[in-house]
Each structure stands twice: as C-alpha cells, then as structure tokens.
C-alpha cells in the first residue's frame, strides 16, 4: 500500500483538527479475489470505546487487522493517529483471537508479556523500566502470580489476560482486541470489561465481540460489520439492523431484552 505524501499530510492535518484516533476511508479488502470488506468509511474518536459486532466471516477480524497494520487494504486509506498504521505501530496494542497456538512453547508468562516491550535487534535487552512495566501490566490484568509459569500451564481465560497484558506492556494509545472473551467465563468477562473501561480513561479501545448483552453497559459505540459497516454512535440497537446488515438476530435481541428479562 502506497500512501501518497499529500494524503499522509492531509490525514495528519485531519487528526489535529478533529482528534480522531482512527480514520478509515473507502477501504476495501479481499482474500484471493473474495471480497471481505467493501467501501468501509468510519472514524473512531480519541478515547472512544467501540465494539465491532457481526456474523462470523463478516470481516471483523480483517477490519481489526487492517487498522492494526497487519494487513494492507486493496483500496482506500487508513490512518491511526494521523499516520499509516504501520508507522504508528508503537502506539498500537493488539490482542489476537487465537490464543491456543504454540501452547507447548517453552516460554514463561513473564517473557510473553515482555514481548510487548520488544524493540527489534535488542538481543537479551531488558531494562529496569521494561521489567517494571511488565510487572505493572501483569498486575493490572490480575495474572502477576503466574509470571514464572510456563504459558501452557495456564487456563484459556488466564492466557487471554496474559495476551492483553502483553499488549498493555507496549503502553499503547489504542488497543485492538479480537474477541477477548472467547474463552472466559461470564464472571471474568464482566471483570475484563470493567478493566477495559478503566483503561478507556487513557486508551482508545476497539474490540470485536459476540456478547453484546454485556458489552452494551461498557462501550460507547457499536459498529456492525458484515462486508459493509454501519456505525452507531450510541449503543441503541435498532431492529432494522438485523435486516439491513444481516447481523445475527440473537445479537440484536440480546440488547433489547435486558439481562434478566429473558427468563
């Protein structure tokens, strides 16, 4: 993806003007000819907390990866804090969806989180500051007691927290989380969202998720992603979303039915 300099300057200017953390403009993306996202345009304000919802295969993960700079769009531009995502990588924290890969890897929890401090070509380098930040992130996510354990010994939920701690260790200004609650029980889910809400005081948060019911108490806006995107500035879900954007019905109804009202 080539960013023309004038485009780059323009987005820097825009960023200064309106303070949007992310600007996505006319972005399309396809995997081997199959379009996944088409003509997506939206922005996320600084200190925003936005949930991406939508069916599996609807492009949530792809959109997150595009914004994090792991993929480059076929068309359109993305800017994060006024620069292309790949240039803004020091300000980006990313929590992947897949947390079960490499479970048998010989690495401790502390070393996984230290990866968040990674600076290329630094050998064994870890400064006093790095160690402190790692401990801080581990404590923030409540997984400090496990820091000497091998990553494979932890449960799925604990591992998920370690991966969030790893992203936090990079001291990001924006955090992308891909279904961070997929292997967490409902109590820890609530704790996790509470932690994210606290973080949101200083960090912009974008997360892809399925559990809208719980989310709606925490997020500031919701976007439905299914090849195209529809943005909602409040978390009020309208029933026409189901028809227009083919979001699964249970996601929509989950919101309208308040917790407890369902049974």
């Amino acid at each position: 993806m080539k960013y023309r300099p004038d485009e780059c300057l323009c987005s820097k200017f825009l960023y200064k003007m309106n303070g949007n953390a992310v600007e996505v403009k006319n972005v399309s993306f396809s995997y081997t000819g199959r379009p996944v996202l088409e003509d997506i345009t939206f922005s996320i304000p600084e200190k925003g907390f936005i949930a991406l919802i939508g069916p599996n295969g609807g492009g949530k993960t792809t959109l997150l990866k595009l914004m994090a700079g792991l993929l480059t769009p076929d068309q359109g531009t993305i800017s994060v804090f006024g620069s292309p995502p790949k240039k803004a990588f020091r300000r980006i924290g990313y929590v992947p969806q897949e947390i079960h890969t490499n479970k048998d890897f010989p690495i401790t929890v502390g070393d996984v989180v230290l990866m968040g401090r990674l600076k290329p070509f630094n050998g064994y380098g870890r400064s006093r500051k790095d160690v402190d930040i790692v401990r801080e992130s581990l404590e923030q996510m409540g997984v400090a007691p496990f820091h000497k354990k091998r990553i494979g010994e932890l449960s799925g939920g604990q591992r998920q927290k370690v991966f969030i701690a790893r992203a936090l260790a990079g001291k990001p200004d924006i955090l992308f989380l891909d279904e961070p609650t997929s292997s967490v029980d409902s109590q820890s889910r609530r704790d996790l969202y509470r932690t994210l809400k606290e973080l949101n005081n200083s960090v912009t948060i974008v997360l892809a998720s399925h559990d809208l019911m719980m989310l709606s108490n925490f997020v500031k806006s919701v976007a439905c992603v299914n090849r195209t995107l529809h943005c909602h500035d409040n978390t009020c879900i309208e029933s026409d979303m189901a028809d227009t954007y083919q979001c699964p019905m249970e996601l929509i109804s989950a919101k309208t039915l308040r917790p407890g009202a369902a049974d």
Partner: protein
Amino acid sequence: MLEILQFEFMRNALFTGLLAGITCGVIGSLVIVNRIVFISGGIAHAAYGGIGIAVFFGLPYLLGVVGFSILCAIVMALVTLKEKHRADTIIGVIWALGMALGVILLDLTPGYNVDLMSYLFGSILTVPKSELWMISGVTVLTVAVVSVFYLDFQAMAYDEEFSRLKGVPVNFLYCLLLCLIALCVVTLIRIVGLILVIALLTIPPYIAEKYAGSLKTTMIWAAVLSTLFTWAGLWLSYTLNLTSGATIILVGGCCFFISLFTDKLLVRLRENAQKSDKAA
C-alpha cells in the same frame, strides 16, 4: 576408559562432539520451536548436490557445499514465506533433486568414487585439525548471531504476527535462520553425517523443551544432551567396535524413547497419586 584419550584423533573427536553439540543445541532448539524440521532435512539432503558440484567442477569442497546449501535455504525460505500451503511439496522436491544431482554429478566425474556412506553417517574419528577450526568458527558465529537476535527469534517463533506488529523484520530473520541451519548442517556433514545432523538437531531439543522454562534453557540443555549423546556414542563405538555415527544416533534414539516412556510413567503415577488422595 581413560586410555582412549591418549589418541589425538580421539581428543579431536571429543572436542568436535562438544562443538557440534553446542551448534546443534542452539540451532536445533530454534528448528523445533519454529517447526521447520522438514526444511532442515531438505537443506541437509540438498547439500549433497553441492558436494557433487564441488567434485565435478573441481571447486573447493566448502565453496560448493556452502554455496549450494545456502542457495537452497534461501529458495526454501522465500517459498515458505510466499506460499505457505504449498511449501512442503516444493521443499520435498528440492530435497530429492539436490540429492539426485549430487549422485549423478559424482557418477559423471571420471575416476572419482566417493563413499556415500561417509556423507550420510560421517566419520567423526577422522576430523582433521583444519576442519576443527572451521567448526569452531561456525559455533562461535551461531552463538553470536542467536544471542544478538535472541528476543527477535523468540518472538518470531512464538507469535509471528505479533512480532511483525512490533516491527521485527520477520522475513529477514527467517532467511537468516535458514542460512544458519545450512551453515550448521554443511559443516557437520563431513564430521557426523547428514542423517546424524537431523537426529542431533531434533532429539536433544525435543527432550530439553519439555523440562525447560524458556527457549534459552532449552538451548543450553539441548547442547548438553547433544554433547553427551556424541560422547557416549563415541565411547560405545570404541569399546564395541561399531560405526561411530550410527552409534551416536542410536544412543540419541534410545534416550528419546526412554524420555517418552518416563513421561508416560510420570503421568500415570501422578494420576494414581491423585486417585489415592481422593480415596483418602
């Protein structure tokens, strides 16, 4: 037992075993955590083509083998990075072609009758001084490069996507790793043979990885185990008058199965202990 140390060739062989052990421990650990045993096998076998080229064109042995295997390593690296899903097929093809090229070129070389077996299983007992220097060089180079890029290698092996995000030049490191494997393999072929290289690259780190807490300790334990296997194999081959390379492989293989068996046993014992705890 100590009388075998009187012979200079034996002292050289033991020293070679130590150097080979260190290199194999470091590179082997990276090979298994990156799951590229197949690629390493491919590089080792394709290197035989380099031997053929060196002999046929009358080039220095090292120039032919090092040049050809690094070429193969880079091709394999590019293929794996570009087309992951077809990579294993292409590596298999390069593996076989390299080997076949070597055999044919040696056939075509007039008056040259090379002993294939010595390349497959090596001859650690006939290592000349000059090659000892070269192996020392490769060992130092390997340890130095891996130390400088340690955290980057670890991040790449553990989570490639995340390390890309952190600005780690994954493609470069991957090529560098395969080149290191090529260098490690070719320097060890004449000494321990290309089959033994693969055995030493995989068995010790496999055992070490289960008990080590980090990649670094895996490397250290794997290096210790490789060295011990080589020494034990040498001693056995001396006392029982067997081929040294094959004996070393068998020692490693036996330890591999012993480790599998003890793991099973430990799990069984732990389960029984838990059951009796519950019963109590």
